[in-house]
């Protein structure tokens, strides 16, 4: 599973992109974020407030109970500020 981070989430976590293999119990985007939070203080800090974390799976916005599977491209980022 490929995870992408953008904007201050990328800056706080310290990487733009990584390949991860979450354990079997990680079935949803919410599960995935909980698991990522356990990977270190930089993750815990960046993902502490889920109200400001947007999730896309395979480049579409999804909710926190959306299923995730190996092979998915999952992106985590703050609310967008373009335009």
């Amino acid at each position, binding site marked *: 599973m490929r995870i*992408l981070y*953008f*904007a*201050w989430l990328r*800056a706080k976590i310290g990487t733009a992109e990584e390949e991860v293999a979450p354990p079997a119990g990680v079935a949803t985007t919410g599960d995935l974020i909980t698991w990522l939070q356990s990977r270190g203080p930089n993750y815990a800090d960046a993902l502490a407030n889920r109200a400001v974390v947007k999730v*896309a799976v395979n*480049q*579409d*916005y999804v909710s926190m109970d959306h299923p995730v599977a190996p092979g998915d491209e999952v*992106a985590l*980022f*703050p*609310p*967008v*500020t*373009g*335009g």
Partner: protein
Amino acid sequence: MAIRVQAEDFDVGAELAALSDGNPSIGGVASFVGLVRDMSKGDGSGDSVSAMTLEHYPGMTERQLAAIEAEARTRWPLDGVLIIHRYGRLLPGDRIVLAACASAHRAAAFEACWFLMDWLKTKAPFWKQEETPAGARWVAAKEEDDQAAERWYKRAP
């Protein structure tokens, strides 16, 4: 389908002319050009902004902009739609975005163009980081942008 995500500037006059070229049933073209402001927005700090860097999510950006264009075409009778959005480092006064809609009817052109801007502000995966005398800072999303986008849901086709 006319969606472009690019680092380069664009020629507004040429783009708008191309949108209506060869189709004399178009009565008008409504457009919006977004520019880099030198003042930070909304946080009251008033710190001057010397430059801004726009980060985006290649692939998803084009996909979301295309979805926004498709939604506009569903809602209004449009003869042409164009969205150009830049990324990279920009200076105050630089063009960031161009949204334009061509239609036989001016109300459709105005509404659809405004819709494009409101939706892309809250859906297109771009993030602004400003350079200020106090250092770099990420621009915070604005509640008023969410509200501007929300109002279009109440008017679904």
